[in-house]
């Protein structure tokens, strides 16, 4: 039996560790082995929360028949259906595992990247832990309000990561980000209030059942549009995408890696959860077509903007936008294959963007920022360059790297759902992606370095980077490892029409 404690334990443990991080770092800073102790501290944090997540997964899968939508409520009253609470299903377990694993790797990178011996860095790490906890709360949420609260905590909280450098550019872009988030949440709250008025509940199950039998669906359409556009802003779907490249490019690379691998994928998870599982009004609104158009636009715009970028970090930030488009292709198909593709894309797309931000971060420490600066990087920093090339090829969808299988699944799903045009757009924009990514590779290997500076690559920071490289290659060639987690999810899809 899954207890309420099993569900909240991962969240609570992460928050506890986050709170303790600040006093612990005060002690750690005075000792000699600062970095080692900091790493040990975070290793403990992630081991504990990882164990909690593993416990939850085991509890869930040891149930007689792993039910979809296992509701875990705070109290056992007859009206618990209508109260706030948590809900576990295969997707939330999968997402939680993914969040813990990826967050741990990015945190290790951050310890090296953001000088952990300087003062405010402990807050930075603490915020990362809290954000991971908030994301986990969002994936375990059982009603629209809990989802809203946890998710907004993660989305708004991530502005602290962006603003860490406190320079004018990042202040500006963070402000832009916060304004967008606030507008988005206003939309969502308005939509939620309509849903509550229509159904008298915000619980996933109850809302869904009530909406199915609703007689007059006009208000529902309005609510759907409001909620969808709210989440579309947060997921940076074109035409609501323009905050993302600014925000990611202005924040430190470790933050950008965290944002792209966790917050971005989380926002997209929320979109899928709300649209596919709860609001599914297929007979009211031709929403799949609407989303398909948005997906096509997102892929085209994201890639075209990446094409004209001169700054490598901005280039990758624009690929993040394009990635959202590829991911949307999966959701619009509303098939089991599409959902598999989405869930696999969360992981592979996330770690690929994280990897490229991490590699670019190491390079930018030595002042390499624009494409011009990257000339001859292959000779100056061979290992960082290899990591960046692997990430670029994975973006471009070259097998056997992870990006290929992700794209293959979503495109096949689109063809299966009779939207071949969307797959064609996706494939053609992939070619465009290859073109500008090869331009980057070309700069790194074909051009001669502008100066003769010899750089000794920092070895420690390469460890988390190459863990991700290995993950992309292994999980790309043998994706069955990930599919073992996704399989049960796809088998419990009674709710997809």
């Amino acid at each position, binding site marked *: 039996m899954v207890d309420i404690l099993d569900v909240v334990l991962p969240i609570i443990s992460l928050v506890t560790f986050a709170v303790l991080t600040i006093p612990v770092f005060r002690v750690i800073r005075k000792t000699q082995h600062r970095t080692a102790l900091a790493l040990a501290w975070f290793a403990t944090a992630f081991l504990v929360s990882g164990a909690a997540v593993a416990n939850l997964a085991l509890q869930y899968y040891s149930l007689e028949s792993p039910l979809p939508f296992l509701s875990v409520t705070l109290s056992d009253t007859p009206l618990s259906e209508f109260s706030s609470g948590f809900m576990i299903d295969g997707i939330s377990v999968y997402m939680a595992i993914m969040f813990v694993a990826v967050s741990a790797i990015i945190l290790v990178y951050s310890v090296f990247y953001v000088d952990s011996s300087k003062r405010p860095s402990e807050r930075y790490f603490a915020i990362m832990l809290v954000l991971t906890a908030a994301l986990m709360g969002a994936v375990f949420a059982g009603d629209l309000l809990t989802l809203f609260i946890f998710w907004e905590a993660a989305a708004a909280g991530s502005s602290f990561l962006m603003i860490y450098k406190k320079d004018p550019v990042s202040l500006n872009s963070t402000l832009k980000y916060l304004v967008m988030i606030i507008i988005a949440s206003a939309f969502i709250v308005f939509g939620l209030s309509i849903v509550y008025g229509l159904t008298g509940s915000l619980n996933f199950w109850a809302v869904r059942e009530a909406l199915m039998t609703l007689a007059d669906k006009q208000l529902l359409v309005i609510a759907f549009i409001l909620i969808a556009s709210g989440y579309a802003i947060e997921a940076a779907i074109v035409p609501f995408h323009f905050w993302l490249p600014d925000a990611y490019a202005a924040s430190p690379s470790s933050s950008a890696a965290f944002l792209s691998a966790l917050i971005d994928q989380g926002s997209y998870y929320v979109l899928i959860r709300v649209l596919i599982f709860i609001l599914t009004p297929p007979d009211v609104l031709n929403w799949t077509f609407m989303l398909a158009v948005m997906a096509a636009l997102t892929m085209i715009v994201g890639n075209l903007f990446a094409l004209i970028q001169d700054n490598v970090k901005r280039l990758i930030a624009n690929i993040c936008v394009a990635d959202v488009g590829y991911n949307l292709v999966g959701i619009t198909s509303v098939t089991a294959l599409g959902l*598999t593709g989405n869930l696999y894309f969360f992981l592979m797309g996330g770690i690929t963007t994280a990897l490229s931000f991490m590699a670019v971060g190491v390079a930018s420490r030595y002042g390499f920022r624009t494409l011009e600066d990257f000339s001859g990087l292959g000779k100056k920093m061979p290992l960082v360059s290899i990591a960046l090339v692997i990430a670029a*090829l994975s973006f*471009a969808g*070259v*097998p*056997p790297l992870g990006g*290929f299988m992700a794209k*293959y699944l979503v*495109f*096949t799903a689109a*063809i*299966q759902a009779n939207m*071949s045009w969307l*797959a*064609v757009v996706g*494939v*053609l924009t*992939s*070619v465009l992606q*290859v*073109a500008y990514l*090869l331009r980057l590779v*070309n700069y790194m*290997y*074909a051009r001669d370095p502008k100066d003769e500076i010899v750089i000794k690559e920092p070895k420690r920071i390469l460890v988390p980077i190459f863990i991700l490289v290995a993950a992309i290659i292994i999980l790309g*060639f*043998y*994706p*069955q490892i990930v*599919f073992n987690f*996704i*399989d049960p999810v*796809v088998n419990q899809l009674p709710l997809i029409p």
Partner: protein
Amino acid sequence: MVALLLVFLLPTLGIPIVYLTGKKSPRAAAIVVALIALANTGLLLTTVPEVLNSSDHVYVEPYAWISILESEFTLFVDGISLSLAIITSVLIVVAALFSIDYMEGKKNLAVYYTLLTMLSLGLVGVFITSNILLFYFCWELMLVPAYFIIGGWGYRSPFRAAFKFFIFTHAGAVFVLLGIGAIYMFTGATDMFLAQQSLMSVSPDLVRWILLSLTAGFAVKMAVVPVHMWLPDAHSEAPSPMSALLSGVIISAGAYAILRLSLGTVFPAVMDTAFGTDFVHGLAIFGVLSAFFGSLIALVETDIKRIIAYSSIAHMGYVLFGLSLFPSSLGAGVVVITAAITGTVLHLVTHAVSKGLLFLSAGAIMHQTEVRDIREMGGLAGKMPFTAVSSTIAALSIAGTPPFACFISEFLIFVGAFEVISGDGFFLLPTALMLIATVLSLAYSLRYLSHVFLGKPKTEGEKKIVDVPIYMKAAMAILVVFVIVLGIWPTFFIDLINTVQFL
């Protein structure tokens, strides 16, 4: 029985070994690459008896892979794929040996040999699987190491040529991907043979788009006119061992893919429609176009490697013409191997060794003289006798002169063409034109030989020109043996190819 799995594993495990050996001594790394490829040749040969003697003439090793897509890691060879895989492994051995002296003194050779090992994984892998997805994995695995080899160790502006190569072939590959996705959607199968049967029940109107998309994608790799533009640059700017692999194997992989996937898997579903007939006619027309275009440019080109590169386009024209003779109306899905198909596959084998030899000889000339314009050469026969002999053998084979390798395969293609003409009068004109094209190939081969080896030296360099070092000689000698032996005794490969009963 794990022979084919080992063929995959040896290069995979070899990658770090080659890199570490190469750090100490590039020469040792080259030997390791050659040994791995030699071992692979041996492993492939061990499957020959099973292919020849078993009842359905195939050798299969299935392993678990991606169960959610019902996709198995199926390693498979039949007569056609085994012939091509064997000759590919041989060419890799030769390319590695040739690289020892040819690449001497270049930078980062450890990386070069590592990339060569990765490349060999993709090159052989493409031929030994019947899983479409795994096929695509290997198909793209050929691309990335090739890009870096051309870019990193090529001539003039190598990354430009490499970029062109990557973009063209990757653009082709995404059309292949669309086709593969559509096949999966209609049949739920990623195995070629299962897909073939399931596609029979799909509407021909849909299947024709799959067929066109796949064929267009493969044609880019095969460098059929008008999507050949990447080939002259990539082949001529690549280091010569890489050119030999590009011309010998990579474009052959395109032809093999058209035979195996377009014609073997998808085509039977539209075989009996009017579109099916139009399709093979279209292949014949593009084949003739490529043959003439390639031959004519080769006649006027003056860069030693570009001549050979254009001759590759011409030869892929022959191959495409041979593929167009694919039996187009034999009723539901039964495919019988005709003389034309035997000849076409044999031509892939013979062209691989002949063109490999010609590229290596050209590389030897460039390496020793540091000249690449044939107008500035001449009289090299006296100074480089070994290279002169091997070039002559290779060029005559390319021209289709008996008793060298390409003669017999071209002959078989024409025999097949005459068989087909009796049933379909359309092929009369293309066959006649193809016969004229072979005359052109003799013309450019002779022009090449006379400019380079005969006459008086045009420029007196300060450097005394001598014949090639020992490893380059050894590599070329291996291919000379293959060209001559395949010319007078092609029975081994013909028997192997003729065992194929279905595609």
